[in-house]
């Protein structure tokens, strides 16, 4: 019986995590796999993210029902009750139909038993190997047995078999015997050698004397097949391509029929290597080229053996699959396609990739975050080179990688910040670019910030980097500036902004998943449905279908999750799902604290570093502790049973476990809580092992002072946790709130209709409110897409589906007049022509859209020859404009946008311009077309149309905002005078038509923003909770945003955001009742002076002043327990449940060793004095009378 999941998510980077969380939060069981040994993908290596140069990944964690997953740094790990994570795992095969897929996964072994590894690092100390460390982009070295990332939890060592030298020193060094190379099973690993050579087996047996593999020999193919048929203990088949009767290919096929899972390898003489490769294509695992010699063959076969016996083949049944394998960075050092040769990468140490620079900035990086030149000198001048490996036809990359511009801006900003205040002044930062693609929301202002921070922008492409003759550690570059002058500059460091490439194993993954790839090797996706792949039931999340930044990957994954969820819903409707069994916890609020403490003693570290019995005796002396027990292997089921038994016997109302890796215990605590009826919020796990790890690695673990110190450290740590538990609030959680399982969608355009459909398909009723007379919105006006699809038909289909859908009620000519309530329970009034209609709903999706902006300038609406791109599109489609009758067309980009008027890029105008341009050129190839632009934003794969437009003969003239083209009119025809930077001279263009790219403006949203209590950004778009991590959420829960109302975007992007928003909405609707988290803020009304400071500081909008009752109220569902209010409150009226002052003070006292503890151990007194009982009593007193110190 295979394990069964609702969805398989391949790739545990940010995209995969988002998709998995989106599905898991609606109660779907998800298996999340990644080929790397850690989660986080590429982002595990990036410490800083635009726009605030922090990480912020944790913002993706669930906010509703947040106790269902561990709430801590996501870079370290992800623990959700509905997500099973399989690392080091590849998808081998996906068969079956949507809804009933069968996936075969292969999990590689790390050769380190995670149950036993305590992360002490002794193995790495013993390992003689030194290879470049992938995590630091090759800037540091690692051993063969290593930690893949420094911050993961739990963090176990991993053996990289490829670089392993098979010296087995790590195996001998491991104190817990966690490393297993399967020595003992070699004698059972029977190898059948099919070779015409008569002595083949004997020869191999001679070579493998030490390994002791049993070899069998078959002289013909038939003999090999006979042996296979009768001997089931054969574990490996070696086929010599020279075998006959039947030949090698046939033998392989037959062998696979007889034993489908039998691994087969080929061996061949050098001249017949192609045949061996053909066998690998047919399913052989690997091949080896002769003449064989023991020095290479023995390690090869031995490693193969270790892989084969330790690899795990996992078969799972899944309903839907989300592929989110992301992208890899272009390697400029690649000998075939690298740009490194001329750019000096790999040859000059000052030339680094953007990823390497990112590692240099990181505090876990090679230099601990200190920026310096490789010879130790100060970094004075740094340059970024854009488009390395992107937008380069010679490198087979006629696409824009979309993310590098922002990465370089961020890095330049970061470098300025890092070196600010230095004696020599901050580093000079220069970005060499062709088009600065700042097309996302807030990107333009980030670029402006960079510019005002002193980052220099030079439009040029560098090609050659040489060492500076005067200072060999510096780099000299040459480029042509706008005036045509050759300019030579010297830099201390050059950062190559490397582009995106499909993941390395893409072809294999595509074959396994049965999906098609596009011409650049990325996953082929549908234009209108960018989450859809060529295979039904398999969806593309994150940056799998096109290079994307974090925000868009998150949206894309949301859309993929939504599609998957819709599919799963057909088989297991959420609506029909019974309520999950809710654990009943006994009410312990009236009991004195009784703490059961358990110390895990499975690992010898603790024993070696200190006297555990003594520690236990001391802990037993602490107030309220009923027993300190020692458990063997708290992390195993057995150890856990011992804890559960003791808990059942003693009936404690608090439990503390002293073990390692506390985060990993969250699900266990939940189980234990359900078993013994104790709220898991009253249990805690404290890390006692990593504290003594430091003591262990010192040379004298037996030194009395060191032991004393270690014991004191551990005692203090446990004591602190005891104090925290003692003060934990045992009162039961507030009553859960019923959810109205219906949705309100405001806006009947593409986004609104898509969101409505997605929610309605999950079985929930949806009310769709459209202001206009008909559904459709802005997308209805489009006639064509850049890649040639028909938007009209798509929209008409969609309108038809929406109007026919049984779960959707459409109100046109309607507006939302009023709305009250909160996530799960809203009450709104929709005003209609014939009066008003009340709507009860649990969630709201705002999709009010946008429109082409209209600013009357450049003769617009004065001369008939001036029109917007959208008008040009419509007239070209209707035939009103005859391209062949024109003598010249001019187009103007960024018209009144990306400047003081509207400081954002509308991101669709460049694509719109290219679309019209190519159509004009298709109809009249000789028609002169001039485009005046600032930066062409043909991001992603739309870059190919930019190339096509140039090749078709259109002339692109860049202008700067200071020097805009001037337009005059002669006989009503526009004459444009502009400065051509390449000619360094003005040019004049006479045209029949002037098409203006006017950009997108949001519709009037302020009224809706007020009704729903959400915010608008400076440009009038809705302000999402977090641009990167929560792009379709508002800070106010239960309200979501999508489409043009959030940010400008193409039709595909609009659909993706609508689906992502729908998925978030379904998450709320999937609950019958919503429960708040255990840590929420409360107001002590008698102390509150209604000053309102807490309302202003609350980042979640959870607090408000209830005028009727004259008190501050907290929405428990919105409150995330951040504690800002408690810090801001001048009276101590705002308190955080589970973080009371008494509790925090006593924890601090414990940390300082200020609490009296009866020392029963005869050990010599340590630094902690037994005197001074004052604080123990003083602390609670102080807290009771209100805090004397103002925490703010």
């Amino acid at each position: 019986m295979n394990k069964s999941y609702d969805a398989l998510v391949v790739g545990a980077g940010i995209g995969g995590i988002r998709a998995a969380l989106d599905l898991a939060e609606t109660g779907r069981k998800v298996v999340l796999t990644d080929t790397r040994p850690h989660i986080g993908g590429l982002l595990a290596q990036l410490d800083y993210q635009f726009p605030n140069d922090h990480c912020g990944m944790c913002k993706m964690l669930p906010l509703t029902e947040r106790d269902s997953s561990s709430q801590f740094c996501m870079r370290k790990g992800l623990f959700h009750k509905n997500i099973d994570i399989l690392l080091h795992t590849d998808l081998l095969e996906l068969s079956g139909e949507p809804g009933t897929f069968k996936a075969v996964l292969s999990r590689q072994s790390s050769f380190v038993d995670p149950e036993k590894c305590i992360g002490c690092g002794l193995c790495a100390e013993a390992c003689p190997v030194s290879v470049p460390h992938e995590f630091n982009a090759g800037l540091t070295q690692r051993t063969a047995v290593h930690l893949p990332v420094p911050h993961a939890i739990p963090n176990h060592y991993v053996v990289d078999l490829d670089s392993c030298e098979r010296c087995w020193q790590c195996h001998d060094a491991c104190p817990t015997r966690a490393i297993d190379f399967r020595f003992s099973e070699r004698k059972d690993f029977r190898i059948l050698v099919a070779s015409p050579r008569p002595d083949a087996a004997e020869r191999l047996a001679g070579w493998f004397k030490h390994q002791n593999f049993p070899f069998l020999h078959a002289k013909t193919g038939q003999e090999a097949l006979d042996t296979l048929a009768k001997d089931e203990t054969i574990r490996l088949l070696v086929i010599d391509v020279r075998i006959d009767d039947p030949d090698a290919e046939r033998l392989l096929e037959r062998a696979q029929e007889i034993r489908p899972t039998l691994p087969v390898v080929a061996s061949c003489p050098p001249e017949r290597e192609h045949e061996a490769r053909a066998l690998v294509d047919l399913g052989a695992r690997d091949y080896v080229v002769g003449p064989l010699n023991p020095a290479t063959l023995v390690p090869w076969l031995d490693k193969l053996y270790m892989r084969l016996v330790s690899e795990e083949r996992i078969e799972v049944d899944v309903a839907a699959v989300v592929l989110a394998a992301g992208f890899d960075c272009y390697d400029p050092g690649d000998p075939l396609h690298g740009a490194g040769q001329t750019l000096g990468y790999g040859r000059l140490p000052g030339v680094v990739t953007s990823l390497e620079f990112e590692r240099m900035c990181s505090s876990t990086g090679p230099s601990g975050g200190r920026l310096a030149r490789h010879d130790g000198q100060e970094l004075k001048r740094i340059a970024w080179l854009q488009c390395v490996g992107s937008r380069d036809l010679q490198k087979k990359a006629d696409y824009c990688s979309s993310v590098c511009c922002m990465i370089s801006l961020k890095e330049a900003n970061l470098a300025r910040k890092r070196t600010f205040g230095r004696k020599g002044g901050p580093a000079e930062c220069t970005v060499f670019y062709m088009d600065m693609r700042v097309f996302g929301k807030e990107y333009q202002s980030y670029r402006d910030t960079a510019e005002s921070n002193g980052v220099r922008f030079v439009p040029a492409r560098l090609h050659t980097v040489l060492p500076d003759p005067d200072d060999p550690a510096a780099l000299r570059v040459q480029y042509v500036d706008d005036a045509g002058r050759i300019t030579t500059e010297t830099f201390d460091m050059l950062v190559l902004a490397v582009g995106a490439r499909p993941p390395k194993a893409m072809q294999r993954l595509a074959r396994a998943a049965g999906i098609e790839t596009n011409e650049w090797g990325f996953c082929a996706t549908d234009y209108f449905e960018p989450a859809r792949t060529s295979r039904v039931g398999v969806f593309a999340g994150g940056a799998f279908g096109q290079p994307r930044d974090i925000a868009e990957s998150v949206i894309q994954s949301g859309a993929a999750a939504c599609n998957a969820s819709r599919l799963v819903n057909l088989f297991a409707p959420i609506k029909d799902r019974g309520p999950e069994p809710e654990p009943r916890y006994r009410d312990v609020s009236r009991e004195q604290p009784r703490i059961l403490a358990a110390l895990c003693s499975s690992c010898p570290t603790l024993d070696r570093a200190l006297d555990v019995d003594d520690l236990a005796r001391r802990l037993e002396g602490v107030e309220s502790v009923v027993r300190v027990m020692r458990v063997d292997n708290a992390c195993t089921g057995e150890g856990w049973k011992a804890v559960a038994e003791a808990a059942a016997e003693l009936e404690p109302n608090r439990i503390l476990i002293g073990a390692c890796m506390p985060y990993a215990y969250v699900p266990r605590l939940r189980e234990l809580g359900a078993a013994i009826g104790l709220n898991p919020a009253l249990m805690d796990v404290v890390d006692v092992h990593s504290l003594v790890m430091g003591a262990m690695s010192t040379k004298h673990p037996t030194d009395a002072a060191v032991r004393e110190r270690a014991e004191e450290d551990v005692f203090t740590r446990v004591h602190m946790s005891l104090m925290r538990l003692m003060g934990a609030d045992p009162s039961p959680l507030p009553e859960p709130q019923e959810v109205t399982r219906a949705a309100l969608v405001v806006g009947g355009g593409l986004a609104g209709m898509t969101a409505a459909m997605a929610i309605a398909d999950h079985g929930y009723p949806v009310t769709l409110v459209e202001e206009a007379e008909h559904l459709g919105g802005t997308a209805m006006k489009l006639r064509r897409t850049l890649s040639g699809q028909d938007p009209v038909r798509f929209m008409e289909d969609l309108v038809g589906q929406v109007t026919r859908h049984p779960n959707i009620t459409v109100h046109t000519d309607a507006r939302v007049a009023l709305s009250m309530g909160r996530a799960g329970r809203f009450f709104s009034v929709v005003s209609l022509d014939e009066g008003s209609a009340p709507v009860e709903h649990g969630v709201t999706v705002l999709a009010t859209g946008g429109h082409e902006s209209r600013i009357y300038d450049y003769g617009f609406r004065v001369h008939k020859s001036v029109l917007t791109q959208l008008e040009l599109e419509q007239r070209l489609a209707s035939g009103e404009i005859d391209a062949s009758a024109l003598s010249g067309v001019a187009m103007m980009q960024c018209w009144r946008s990306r400047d003081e008027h509207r400081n954002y890029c509308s991101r669709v105008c460049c694509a719109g311009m290219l679309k019209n341009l190519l159509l004009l050129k298709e109809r009249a190839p000789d028609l002169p077309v001039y485009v005046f632009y600032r930066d062409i934003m043909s991001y992603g794969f739309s870059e190919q149309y930019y190339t096509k437009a140039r090749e078709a003969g259109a002339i692109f003239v860049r202008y700067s905002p200071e020097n805009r083209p001037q337009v005059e009119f002669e006989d009503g025809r526009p004459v444009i005078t502009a400065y051509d930077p390449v000619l360094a001279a003005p040019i004049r263009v006479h045209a029949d038509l002037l098409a203006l790219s006017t950009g997108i403006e949001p519709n009037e949203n302020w009224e809706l923003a007020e009704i729903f209590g959400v915010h608008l950004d400076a440009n009038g778009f809705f302000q999402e909770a977090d641009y990167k991590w929560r792009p379709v959420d508002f800070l106010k829960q239960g309200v979501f945003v999508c489409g043009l109302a959030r940010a400008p975007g193409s039709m595909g992007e609009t659909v993706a955001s609508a689906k992502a928003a729908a998925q978030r909405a379904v998450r709320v609707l999937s609950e019958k009742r919503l429960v708040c988290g255990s840590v929420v803020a409360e107001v002590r009304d008698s102390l509150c002076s209604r000053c309102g400071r807490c309302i202003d500081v609350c980042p979640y909008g959870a607090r408000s002043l209830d005028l009727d009752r004259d008190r501050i109220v907290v929405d428990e569902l919105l409150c995330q327990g951040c504690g800002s209010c408690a810090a801001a409150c001048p009276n101590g009226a705002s308190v955080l449940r589970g973080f009371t002052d008494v509790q925090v003070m006593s924890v601090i006292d414990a940390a300082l060793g200020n609490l009296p503890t009866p020392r029963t151990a005869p050990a010599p007194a340590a630094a902690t004095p037994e005197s001074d009982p004052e604080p123990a009593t003083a602390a609670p007193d102080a807290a009771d009378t209100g805090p004397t110190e103002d925490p703010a």
Partner: protein
Amino acid sequence: MAPATEHADAATAKAPEAPRAPAAAPAPAPDPRAQALEAALDEVRHMVAGCMQCGTCSASCPNQFAMDLTPRRMWRLLLHGYADEVMDSKTFYLCSSCYGCTLRCPRGLPLTRAMAALKRASILRGGPGQRRHGAFYATFVDNVRRLGRVNETDLMAHYFVALRDPLAPFSFMPLGLRMLAKGKAGLHGSPQRGRLGPLFAKVREMEEKP
């Protein structure tokens, strides 16, 4: 860079109409030479249409210091339709076919081929510019054809004649003296004289066939 700016300024003055408009050629009897020239230039335009003005070609050109137009600006002028300015420049004659730009061009444009095509177009067009800038090419090939290999002394003598500039020999004097001193330029005849005659004849024959 003064000449380039001049060119562009001149271009500005001359650009009242949208260049390359098909209707802008109302010549009653098209000259076949002019047509051939236009076709040749169109071919070059096609080759470089994908240019995105990054300047890689200009910055990586080893002969750029001697050019009056940078390659980037030359492509740009050509695309804008200023053929005369391009034809009058010596930039493409200075191309030594090192293929550096072709190798590095991110758009993968055949720039060296375009340079050669411009040379051919220039010969087709003739005119004072071509005579001046093309003089060395013509003399060099002629020298090789006659002598079977390059004879520096003979080459320079013919080159000066072709330049029709009495002052030109003086500017080359220091170089010539150095070469003489090193024995790089002698007065001896070539033992290979006429040896390449059949090769040139064959090439001409092939070129004349369509």
